[in-house]
């Protein structure tokens, strides 16, 4: 009741401000009148009595203020008052306000976007029950696991409640109409049980469904796919469909909020891994060497620490290496987050952390920028402050007003930035960079993002709002009012100068980082990858999925190559297992020196990329043969095994690249392979990788390929060519699913991370550059305007233009120099962090150094241009007259 009363009182006080003010005024006046009347009675004349009454009463405004404070409702009231006052002040200088709000909007927006990404990709757990104890079992060398090894891990470990495994697969799904190739997961029977996922519709598969190879012809659809392709038809459960032309049954649908455990990859379906033979056209279930399991995951048992679980897994790994020395090198494990495989997760986390750091720097630079602007404003307003102090305003109240001003700006900037970042994140969230692959970046902003933006806004507001505080506390009203507007600013500039140097240094770091990134991108786009993707079209098919028997695959490949070669205008046609830098990944195989006897993985000379190619592949791919010969169709099972290798392979495994032709090496089944040709080095999995060994094997000597890519080199119009190629191939097999894509388009996939990295760094660098412009501009403009009178006198006394400029801007330019140099050094140190993401990012690159110096010079020039013009155009007569 009491609380309610006091609340009501406060509200009343708040909303009846004017009435209360009027009453208070009347009460105090009445007091003074009473007193004056008393004094008049004691013999004073009326005017003197009134004067005395007022003097005796004391500072009326001060007491009114204290009364309001005593009433309590006043806290809100005075805050509102401060806000109104601040708004008035800000409206008086719109340029300053807009610049400040924009600066902050950019800085906070950048932080909110980066944090949104960080939040979505790293902080937010996978959406499964009890996600805290869910771990992925990763190999420390980032390799994938084989199915038999997984089974051993599952059955012999003692740390996990259960371990499930996942593989990626693409299948041709025929539901009666519109057969399409879609991506999804092949999962072990216990996958949903391990994760604790309940069906949205029908049922999901369980371990009891698995009874040996191809025993579980079931498919589970994800909600998204069911929603978009079956229009929420609840009758799909139990429906018969064809998966790669095998009869399958739709078991059920997963719940809408479960989008798989991988964050970047939203699957369309789940099929049991035991049916891999039908799904992938090939089974690796009994092969310990074929590493097709991309993730093993499970919940830790209660009370088991990750360290103990790892130690336990390592003992299993050690015994596996002992039991199967041919297939397993000694493996050690780490536990990771299930949302990203460690090979992606590590660089992504490092990169996002680096971005966050840079974004933080931007905000810091913005704060330094605004801090010096605020300090400048405060010293311009020192007379006003002094006047208010003299009139009885408390220093606290003045500080509160200055802080209110800073907070208003930071909140306005923060909300603008947040709105922008929400829009950006929403777009990023729906962005699908590659058609056909369900790859996307789920970065829906949530409450965390809003909260962080708000906190950042408030903190930065306090940060730059606090800069002029010391100034206010040191203000001596009498001195300033006496001294007039030309009052010395003296040491106050020093603090501002330090801020400016810090800000320029931060901006130079950002500019350096973005230069490094842009340069790296330029190199990666024009680098030599050992291929020439221009004028090449890729035809992707999978003969196993299309139902060809192993014996009929190679004749069919010959027919397809011949058919494509017969198209007028086609120069070369080559077939390859996976094209380099394609999204299909790459095969790798252990290779051994010829003299090695024990072919266990630990004795391997290298783990080399392996490409199975047709004779004309090198021409079609644009890879140069340096020495020796390429293959012919006669390099078949009847002929001795041969290979071509790249220079790196020759140097690393065969000793030297110059006389490697004719030498032998071994593959893991013991076959001796003779090197018949050396080809140029290239990039194979990603453009940022270090130089890797690669070998090329003739198609006719290898096991038949399932998935295959045919490269068609032709200068003809790609669209026409694609259409012709399609009809020619359809003439051979009308039902064959095929994808045709330009190789340059396909390369976008492997360039994706490098491009994303470069673009984000570039944008941050640009923001840094903008901030340094506004910072230097603010400083230069302020120092010119402060010294306008002095400059006028100098001009009047006959100073030359250069001297005037030196006087006006010398300091700003010097600060710019110091800041840039510091930033450049820091930037070079920081760029090491970037070098593992950005292709060939070397900050010591003279071009980058020159670029940064030039950029900072240009920025300085742009930023001081207008103040310099103003300094030069000072008209001494006019100026002196005004004062």
């Amino acid at each position, binding site marked *: 009741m009491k609380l309610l009363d006091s609340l009501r009182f406060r509200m009343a006080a708040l909303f009846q401000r004017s009435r209360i003010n009027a009453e208070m005024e*009347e009460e105090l006046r*009445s007091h003074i009148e009473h007193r004056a009347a008393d004094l008049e009675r004691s013999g004073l004349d009326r005017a003197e009595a009134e004067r005395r009454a007022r003097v005796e*009463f004391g500072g009326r405004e001060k007491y009114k203020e204290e009364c309001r404070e005593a009433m309590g409702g006043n806290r809100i009231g005075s805050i509102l008052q401060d806000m109104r006052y601040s708004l008035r002040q800000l409206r008086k200088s719109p340029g300053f306000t807009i610049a400040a709000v924009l600066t902050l909007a950019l800085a906070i927006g950048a932080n909110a976007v980066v944090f949104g990404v960080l939040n979505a990709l790293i902080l937010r757990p996978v959406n499964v029950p009890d996600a805290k104890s869910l771990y992925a079992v990763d190999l420390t060398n980032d390799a994938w696991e084989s199915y038999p090894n997984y089974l051993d891990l599952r059955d012999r470990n003692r740390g996990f409640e259960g371990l499930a495994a996942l593989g990626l697969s693409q299948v041709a799904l025929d539901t009666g109409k519109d057969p399409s190739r879609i991506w999804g997961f092949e999962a072990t029977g216990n996958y949903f049980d391990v994760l604790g996922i309940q069906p949205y519709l029908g049922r999901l598969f369980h371990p009891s469904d698995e009874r040996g190879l191809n025993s579980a012809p079931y498919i589970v659809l994800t909600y998204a796919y069911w929603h978009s392709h079956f229009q929420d038809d609840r009758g799909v459960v139990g429906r018969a469909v064809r998966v790669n032309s095998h009869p399958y049954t739709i078991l059920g649908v997963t719940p809408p909020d479960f989008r798989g455990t991988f964050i970047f990859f939203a699957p369309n379906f789940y099929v049991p891994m035991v049916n891999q033979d039908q799904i992938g056209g090939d089974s690796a279930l009994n092969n310990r060497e074929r590493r097709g399991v991309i993730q093993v995951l499970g919940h830790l048992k209660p009370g088991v620490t990750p360290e103990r679980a790892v130690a336990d897994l390592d003992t299993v790994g050690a015994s596996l290496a002992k039991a199967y020395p041919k297939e397993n090198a000694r493996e050690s494990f780490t536990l990771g987050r299930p949302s990203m495989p460690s090979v992606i997760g590590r660089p992504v986390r490092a990169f996002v952390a680096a971005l966050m750091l840079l974004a933080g720097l931007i905000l810091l630079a913005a704060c330094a920028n605004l801090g010096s602007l605020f300090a400048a404003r405060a010293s311009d307003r020192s007379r006003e402050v002094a006047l208010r102090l003299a009139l009885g305003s408390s220093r606290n109240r003045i500080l509160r007003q200055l802080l209110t001003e800073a907070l208003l700006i930071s909140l306005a900037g923060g909300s603008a930035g947040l709105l922008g970042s929400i829009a950006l994140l929403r777009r990023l969230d729906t962005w699908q960079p590659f058609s056909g692959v369900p790859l996307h970046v789920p970065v829906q902003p949530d409450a965390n993002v809003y909260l962080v933006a708000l906190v950042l806004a408030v903190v930065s507001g306090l940060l730059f709002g606090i800069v002029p505080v010391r100034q206010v506390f040191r203000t001596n009203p009498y001195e300033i009012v006496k001294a007039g507007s030309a009052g010395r600013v003296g040491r106050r500039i020093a603090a501002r100068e330090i801020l400016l140097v810090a800000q320029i240094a931060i901006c130079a770091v950002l500019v350096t980082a973005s230069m490094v990134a842009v340069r790296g991108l330029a190199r990666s786009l024009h680098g030599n990858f050992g291929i020439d993707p221009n004028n090449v079209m890729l035809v992707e098919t999978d003969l196993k999925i299309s139902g060809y028997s192993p014996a009929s695959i190679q004749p069919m490949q010959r027919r397809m190559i011949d058919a494509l070669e017969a198209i007028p205008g086609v120069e070369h046609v080559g077939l390859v297992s996976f094209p380099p830098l394609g999204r299909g990944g790459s095969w790798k195989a252990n290779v051994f020196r010829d003299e090695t006897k024990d072919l266990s993985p630990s004795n391997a000379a290298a783990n080399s990329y392996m490409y199975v190619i047709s004779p004309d592949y090198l021409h079609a791919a644009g890879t140069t043969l340096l020495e020796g010969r390429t293959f012919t169709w006669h390099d078949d099972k009847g002929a001795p095994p041969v290979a071509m290798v790249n220079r790196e392979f020759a140097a690393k495994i065969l000793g030297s690249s110059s006389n490697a032709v004719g030498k032998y090496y071994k593959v893991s089944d013991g076959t001796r392979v003779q090197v018949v040709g050396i080809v140029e080095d290239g990039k194979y999995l990603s453009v940022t990788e270090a130089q890797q060994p690669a070998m090329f094997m003739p198609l006719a000597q290898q096991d038949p390929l399932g998935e295959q890519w045919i490269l068609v080199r032709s200068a003809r119009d790609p669209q026409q060519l694609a259409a012709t190629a399609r009809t020619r191939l359809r003439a051979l097999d009308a039902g064959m699913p095929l994808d045709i894509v330009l190789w340059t388009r396909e390369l976008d996939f492997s360039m994706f991370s490098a491009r994303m990295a470069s673009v984000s760094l570039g944008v941050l660098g640009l923001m840094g550059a903008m901030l340094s412009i506004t910072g230097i501009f603010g400083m230069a403009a302020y120092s010119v305007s402060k010294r306008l009178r002095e400059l006028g006198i100098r001009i009047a006394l006959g100073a030359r233009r250069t001297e005037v400029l030196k006087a006006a801007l010398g300091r700003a330019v010097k600060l710019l120099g110091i800041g840039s140099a510091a930033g450049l050094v820091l930037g070079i140190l920081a760029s090491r962090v970037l070098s593992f993401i950005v292709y060939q990012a070397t900050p010591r690159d003279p071009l980058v150094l020159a670029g940064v110096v030039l950029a900072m010079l240009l920025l300085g020039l742009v930023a001081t241009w207008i103040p310099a013009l103003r300094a030069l155009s000072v008209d001494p007569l006019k100026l002196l007259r005004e004062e």
Partner: protein
Amino acid sequence: MTDQAQLLPGTLDLLILRAVSIGALHGYGILLRIGQISGNALLIEQGALYPGLFRLVRQGLLTTSWGTSENNRRAKFYELTEAGHTRLREETDSWNRLVAAIAAALSQQPEEA
């Protein structure tokens, strides 16, 4: 003027309560009453009275009403509430105890051991 004492912090509220306890008064009246009951021995800047009054009103110890003063001017009158009476009794008691204790302490002669 010289024999006027500075007010101890916190004692103004007590004086106001005491002044008002005799009957409803307006601000200037309270000031005169304090002067009268203290024998003009205390120095109070006149305006300083009002923040105290507002504070006491907010604490629910005083109520206010507008009325007409003895010389026919409009004025705001203050009156003790029930809670105000209780508070005055408590504060007077504790003040008396404090004064007695301090007086006793000050009148004590130092003793040789």
